[in-house]
């Protein structure tokens, strides 16, 4: 179980879905706070739903309000990076670049990508956490090599 978990985690890292920050959070887990990371991720997916909706709505407007989009993305990026969602974060950065350039199409395209990554990561993490719970409190400092 543990091994599987570790492998899973390793692959997430290898594939670039997660980064160092995730590990940091895991290290914060302790007896007092055993499921910290899971809590964070859950909170994230709950909270960001609203944000995603806002962005989608904003993207439908014409012309696009880049400033607003930029500000949404600022927040999105912030929370995504807080727990190490690497790919999502990258898409956020790209999105912002498009915003700055006033590239409406670019924004829309990137946002689609972003949503994809966002959804993919969510699924993967769900599986991961399920495993984690089954595996029981595990070694925290299991760093992917």
């Amino acid at each position, binding site marked *: 179980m543990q091994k599987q978990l570790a492998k899973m985690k390793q692959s997430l890292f290898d594939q670039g879905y997660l980064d160092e*920050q995730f590990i*940091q*959070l895991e*290290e*914060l887990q302790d007896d007092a*706070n055993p499921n*910290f990371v899971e*809590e*964070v991720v859950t*909170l*994230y997916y709950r*909270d*960001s739903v609203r944000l995603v909706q806002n962005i989608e709505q904003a993207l439908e407007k014409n012309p696009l309000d880049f400033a607003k989009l930029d*500000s949404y993305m*600022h*927040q999105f*990026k*912030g*929370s995504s*990076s*807080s*727990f*190490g969602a690497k790919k999502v974060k990258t898409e956020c950065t790209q999105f*912002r670049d498009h915003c700055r350039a006033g590239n409406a199409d670019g924004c829309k395209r990137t946002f689609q990508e972003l949503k994809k990554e966002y959804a993919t990561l969510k699924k993967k993490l769900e599986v991961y956490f399920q495993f984690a719970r089954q595996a029981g409190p595990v070694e925290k400092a299991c760093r992917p090599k």
Partner: protein
Amino acid sequence: MTVEEIRGDRDNYDNFPVGLRVLAVDDDPICLKVLDTLLRKCQYHVTTTSEARIALKMLRENKDRFDLVISDVQMPDMDGFKLLELVGLEMDLPVIMLSAHDDSKLVMKGVTHGACDYLVKPVRIEELKNIWQHVIRRKKPSQTKSNDQGKASGEANGSPTSGNGDQNGKFNRKRKDEGYESDDNGNDSEDPGTQKKPRVVWSIELHRKFVGAVNQLGIEKAVPKRILDMMNVEGLTRENVASHLQKYRLYLKRINSAASQQANMAAALGIKDSFMRMGSLDGLGDYRTLSGAGRLANAALSPYTSGVMLGRLNSPANISHLRNLTPPSLIQPNHTQNLKMHPVLSPTGQNPSLFQGIQSSLELDDLGPAIGSSSNLLNGIPNNPLMSGGGGFGNQSSHNMAASFNTEPQNANVIGSSNSLLFTEPFHGNNCSNGPYIQNNSIEFSSSANVVLGPLEDSNAHSMNMNQTNNQRWGENRQNFVHGSNNNFGSLNSHIPANDILSPLNRSLDQNGGIFNNQKMDMFVNGRSGGCASTLLQQNDNEKLGTEPRTRSNENFMLEQPKLQGGFVPQSYDSLDDLVSAMIKREQDVATPNCDFGFDDYSFGQGV
């Protein structure tokens, strides 16, 4: 620094960093949660909130409740920088900015607003482990000051240390301003200049030497140490020079951007209203807004935004003032007419004074003779502070100055002082005599805004700020100087029913160096609103009577603003202003090279 001593202040003797009381503000719940956990891991006492307003409320309720504040940059209810300014001004706590972006512009903004650090999300625990150093830095000065006079820790000044102040005495210390500010929090302190820390008074001669040294070295190479060596003034420390240099640089920047700002200001004027609204923030907010407004609203407004700022100062009530002010402030001399608008400004009472001051300043330009419009000017005071202060403060703060001004308690002083009759008196005397420095204001007003602030503090605290900011306006200095003084006066005027005073002031202003003369005034007014002070005064007097209370508020705002600025040495401004004024006086020519400080921000009309 002796950590032991620092620790002594804390409950936790043995493990200083442990138990550090941190207030974390971030609208993003995920980040907040993560931050909270990380901080707890460092064994700090963490309080979190997702709203800046709540954070402010908590901070205001008990200033000793927290040691450190960490704030996100982008928040829906309040701009992180604004919060930063406010905290710096009011509570003099170290503030760390946090952001998902690492644009150097934002980082710069954080610096100019006085943030002690800027962290990029995601935050790592290693970074958080060291944040306690900022708390020590702030407190240290008191200790180290005595030990190491020459310590180049501006922070030392930061700690509200009257002691430091004493040490530095006359030198404007950046931090001092903060500390000063916090001590005085000029906004509402009616005590005329009670809290003022002895600052370094950058007299005209001193400033000249300074500028001379800078020019000789070249602006690129002008480092405080070298400047200090060149100036060869006894008793001047490197820190003094450093903070002064900083102000100067801001001034220069403002001057350069003044042109654009002016345009913005014009725009800003339109925006005034928005600013005014901004003012509603808490007054501080207003103030912030003003500064910010300048920036925010007009981006370019910066100095001029002070006009806007003024609006802010007035806080919602004053907003009306601000409106008036903003236009005038923003609008350089030309706008002075706008100043006239101010009458409205005075709504807040406080603002009126501020505005008045400002307005007067503004008006001074055009009005020069039209002091009568003083109402405008008077209102301008708020503006002025804004302008100079506001502009200087607000605007300045907006950019560079903002930091300096806003933070500068000086402004507050100025304003505060101005209100206090101090102005009026000095004003009279000063005005007439002041040519060079409004300082004569006796109030201290001229002495570098700081002074002004002091006395004015009460009412003119804002004015002071204004003045200070005005002072800051080197370029405008001349005028600013006048303004500064004027501002102070303005503020004072507001208080002082001295309508009569105003007139004499105006005259004196003129006398002073011609700077006061409308032309100068214009300059000041524009930049300084402070300069308008003379006008303001007049106005103030006129307006003051009624508006005084408002002006005060404005002033307060202004004061606040300066603080916000991030601890820029508002004080410095004072000196700058004073210097400028002095310089101006000295040289009738408005465009003293030195004056090229960024006062232009005021762009009022500085003519700089």
